């Protein structure tokens, strides 16, 4: 413990991750009634976290071996649960992403949540999230990772259901918790198998190649697959993906922070964290690749059929997460992590911009926002376009570089199907992204657009509000957005230095990852298989093609703004209903869980177990009543019985 205070690195790690916990405790216990103070405490603690994270990144950028520190929190016979820190390039990168975006979102929320009655509660939960997420990121063992992983899930539940008066919000929170819990059961069982096989769950040791020989290959594959269940839950992979679009019921800054940039990326992060371990099981990697692909394609189609601003970004998040999983599963450690990094930046940007529009126009329908002059809000409109360009993968924005990296890995995969899926995904992404952008940039008057219902009073009086909103409230929201936009513009150019940082050090996981990742990358560069330039051309064609397609349908002057989907109502319905996944889930819950097991067991409890026991009791009472006729209370009768009994006894004694 003492070394903690002597070593500035450990001190920074401890301080940075646990200050938000203190902030949460203080807000909940003491400052609940003082909103301003609560927000200051929370923002203060998270800005300290940013400083600590940056300090660690800078001092350790050339550290070589990862720094590990742990102390046992629980010693239960042969199971040791340590808490501590593993500071290596991956965790440092993620720590900084989480800290910086948390900080920006918390600043943004000062404006966005201003005047909300639950303001202090909001900041307490934000602090809870920051603590849990950062402690998860720097976990040195899978058990610590799992513990904070669960805690992050709790924070997510609380923040999605923040507007708990709204039934849909609390419903969405519950759904998120239970669906991720479903994946976590697999995660937990996988960890148990590993505990029994390995003895301990230190990430560094798990990733050492030699360790795999300690347990048989089939167990390794089973545990890798089970652990992937956790990724599927947390990162909303097929079929556990519908909770994420529903999670948009939370306040928009929460969607930006948890349900796009950081928390949902935790699954991908965990995948990357034990990437060398996964690499030992080709079966698990293959399944992950398939699931990632299905997820990406399915959710892209869903995004084409919604008119809800946040829903589009939510589906897009699911799809991009699928894309990251594809990258990792195809062996591209760096590509997957790099896309995670850039995505965190531009997706948070898109959500925060959307938040400004929603705050201003009180509606989520981007057609209405467009028609009411959303483009006049210059800062968010420009920034959102920047984010959209990055998402579509247009040079020079950050998404271009990371998508290229992932596609490069896919191109190197022997099965070209994955590459085509990836390119198709890129096309759809550009299409649905710019469908939204063009709706907002080039609104048609209400008469020209069919089949929508103007939600009443949505835009009323926003003109009067305009001026007062351009006070501190506007700027607390606009400044974080501009910072993120700037990041999205320049982050892509850090590719090579980031790659050097993540792969260039002598750590075991990095070495192993490097042998996969850079190989693939190098091959792509050298032009084996599909040449690098051909690939580049294909990717750019897809992105630009998607944008032009969207422009043709929604942007140009004579555009009908109807989209090709209108021609296929059945298909549109399929996409809009999320491929009926929710309906299926509902049916499953109703028929199997509620009317099935629950009903069966409840009836069994009442009728058979309880009924049986009560039956015995009534039988006892009944037979008691029968016998009680003997006890009639008449003295003569009793005497008679007594004499008879005595007589029998005497007779017996005499004769025996």
């Amino acid at each position, binding site marked *: 413990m003492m070394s903690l205070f002597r070593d500035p690195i450990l001190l920074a790690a401890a301080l940075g991750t646990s200050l938000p916990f203190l902030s949460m405790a203080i807000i909940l216990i003491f400052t609940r009634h003082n909103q301003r103070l609560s927000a200051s405490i929370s923002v203060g603690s998270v800005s300290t976290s940013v400083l600590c994270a940056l300090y660690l990144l800078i001092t350790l950028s050339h550290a070589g071996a990862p720094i590990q520190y742990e102390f046992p*929190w*629980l*010693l*239960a*016979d*042969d*199971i040791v649960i340590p808490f501590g820190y593993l500071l290596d390039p991956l965790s440092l990168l993620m720590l900084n992403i989480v800290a910086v975006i948390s900080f920006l979102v918390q600043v943004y929320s000062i404006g966005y949540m201003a005047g909300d009655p639950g303001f202090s509660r909001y900041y307490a939960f934000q602090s809870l999230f920051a603590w849990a997420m950062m402690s998860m990121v720097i976990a040195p063992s899978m058990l610590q990772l799992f*513990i*904070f992983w*669960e*805690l992050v899930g*709790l924070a997510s*539940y609380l923040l999605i*259901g923040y507007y*708990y*008066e709204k*039934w849909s919000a*609390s*419903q969405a*929170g*519950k759904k998120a*918790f*239970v669906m991720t*819990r*479903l994946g976590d*059961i697999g995660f*937990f*069982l996988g960890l*148990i*198998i590993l*505990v*029994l096989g390995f003895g301990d769950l230190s990430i560094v040791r798990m990733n050492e190649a030699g360790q795999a020989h300690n347990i048989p290959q089939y167990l390794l594959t089973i545990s890798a697959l089970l652990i992937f269940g956790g990724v599927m839950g947390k990162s909303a992979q097929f079929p556990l993906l519908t909770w994420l679009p529903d999670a948009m019921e939370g306040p928009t800054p929460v969607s930006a922070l948890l349900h796009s940039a950081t928390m949902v990326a935790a699954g991908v992060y965990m995948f990357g964290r034990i990437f060398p371990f996964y690499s030992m099981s080709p079966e698990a990697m293959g399944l992950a690749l398939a699931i990632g692909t299905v997820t990406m394609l399915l959710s892209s189609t869903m995004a084409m059929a919604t008119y809800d601003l946040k829903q589009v970004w939510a589906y897009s998040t699911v799809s991009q997460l699928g894309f990251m999983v594809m990258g990792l599963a195809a062996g591209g450690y760096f590509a997957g992590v790099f896309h995670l990094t850039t995505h965190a930046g531009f997706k948070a940007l898109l959500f925060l911009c959307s938040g400004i529009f929603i705050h201003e126009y009180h509606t989520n329908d981007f057609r209405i926002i467009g028609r009411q002059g959303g483009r006049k809000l210059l800062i968010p409109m420009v920034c959102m376009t920047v984010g959209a360009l990055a998402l579509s993968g247009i040079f020079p924005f950050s998404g271009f570089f990371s998508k290229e990296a992932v596609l490069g890995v896919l191109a190197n995969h022997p099965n070209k199907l994955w590459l085509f899926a990836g390119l198709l995904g890129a096309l759809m992404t550009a299409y649905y992204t710019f469908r939204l952008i063009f709706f907002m940039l080039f609104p048609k008057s209400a008469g020209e657009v069919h089949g929508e219902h103007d939600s009443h009073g949505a835009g009323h009086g926003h003109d009067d509000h305009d001026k007062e909103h351009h006070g501190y409230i506007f700027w607390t929201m606009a400044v974080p957005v501009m910072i993120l936009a700037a990041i999205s513009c320049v982050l892509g150019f850090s590719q090579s230095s980031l790659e050097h940082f993540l792969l260039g050090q002598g750590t075991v996981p990095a070495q192993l990852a490097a042998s996969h990742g850079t190989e693939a990358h190098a091959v792509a560069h050298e032009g084996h298989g599909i040449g690098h330039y051909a690939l580049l051309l294909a990717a750019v064609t897809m992105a630009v093609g998607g944008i032009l397609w969207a422009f043709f349908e929604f942007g140009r002057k004579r555009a009908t703004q109807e989209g090709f989907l209108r021609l296929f109502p059945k298909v549109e319905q399929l996409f809009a209903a999320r491929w009926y996944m929710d309906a299926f889930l509902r049916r499953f819950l109703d028929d199997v*869980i*509620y009317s099935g*097991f*629950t*009903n069966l*067991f*409840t009836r069994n*409890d009442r009728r058979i*177990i*309880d009924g049986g*026991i009560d039956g015995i*009791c009534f039988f006892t009472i009944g037979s008691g009543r029968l016998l009680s006729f003997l006890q009639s209370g008449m003295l003569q009768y009793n005497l008679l019985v007594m004499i008879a009994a005595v007589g029998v006894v005497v007779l017996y004694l005499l004769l025996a």
Partner: protein
Amino acid sequence: MTSMEMASFPVLTAILMSTIVGLLVIVFIPDGRDKLIKQVSLAFSAIGLLLSLWVYLNYDVQKGGLQFVERYLWVKGLGIYWFNAVDGINAPMLLLTAVVLFTGVLTMWELEVRVKEFFAFMFLLVAGVYGVFMSMDLFWIFVWYDVSLFPMYPLIAIWGGTRKEYGGMKLTLYLLAGSALILPGIIYLWVQGGSGTFDLFELQRIGFTPHVQRVAFVMLYLGFGILAGVWPFHTWSPVGHVAAPTAVSMIHAGVLMKLGAYGILRLGMTLCPEGLSYWSELMALLATVGIVYGAFVGLAQTDLKYVIGYSSVSHMGIVGLGLSTMTVNGINGAVFQMFAHGVMTALLFSSVGYIYDRTHTKMIPDLGGLSRTMPVASAFFIIAAFAGIGVPFMASFWAELLVFISAVKTYPVRGILAVSGLVISALFMLRVVQKTFYGEKNEKWEHIPDVPFFLATPRIILVGTILFFGMFPRIMLDVIQSAVIPFVASLSV
């Protein structure tokens, strides 16, 4: 027998006396002095709490074994001893009992009906519970066990709510049936042991033939198992919880059910290790069924107290599963879960108690939107629900973690089934939280004030306990482990 040092001050007897003297004082306070009765009750329960805490903190983990021993021959001919001692297993149980009694008294602060009798019965009940937990003599364990059962019927039938006579009667009959199995089990062991002693550890040293162990174990297991809510002997428990007044539900679910699990561990498993390994497969099966089944049935309930009742069935299944693994961490987790579940259920019932006192309903469809009008009172329930779901940094999380790891190791299929039950238990707890506390403000309850600070203290104490042992599980686990490791070692010999 492990090393024993007689305690210089009979602190365990003092804990027991805090309830018995308290009971006598309450009885002699004239009727109508309700306030005084409550204050006296609080004072005596506080003495018990402080002494139990002192014992817990002064228990020497390094040394282990029995400590604070008081052992005097009482009836020579039968070998009955006044033998109280503490080891790592019952130290947490004594603390749990004290915490639940203290907070229970506080929870009943607003009671107005027959106050004197209520607290008198409650103290009698807890005297029995303390007695079972601290006694190491089979005779006394049985006596105290029956002392703790007797007051349940009047407590439920007089102060209870929904179907109180039915619930009270059902509970009493079940528990008496249990004790009708335990008594012959104890006498059987006493006879087989040479009739010389009721001392638990003497009997353990004598040892029994495998056949005797199998017969005795199943009697003790079923007898105590009824009290522990083992499936399919659990139906008394939700019905009884629903019928009972708040503090009685707290003690009942929080402590009394643990008495059953403790009995299985202390008597059954200690004296009949062969019987345990013979029956452990069945134990694991019943426990697993209980975990999953309890969660499913809980999903269908519309009465808040029924929901908690079935969650108890499910959570006590985790205790049973842990015990059945016969591994260090299984039993570690089981004992930890006994403590954690005790505090958690007490908190759940205590929170419902306040809501019920104010709204006069505990039907979930009638409630709803309570968070808006009483945020603090709601928060207590929600925190307890999270503890029930197994959120990290709540005491039960660690317990469940240890139990499940051991269970999957020992009984893979049953273990996996039990772990999968976690999804259902999350679903049913969150469903209750949503329907009761979330949603639009309910105008019916708009006038109800949030819980005032003094009335919130019992819940604050319980939340604090859950979080404290959730944050620092070692403080609990090291104590438990000091007894469990030698115990499991003795099983394998």
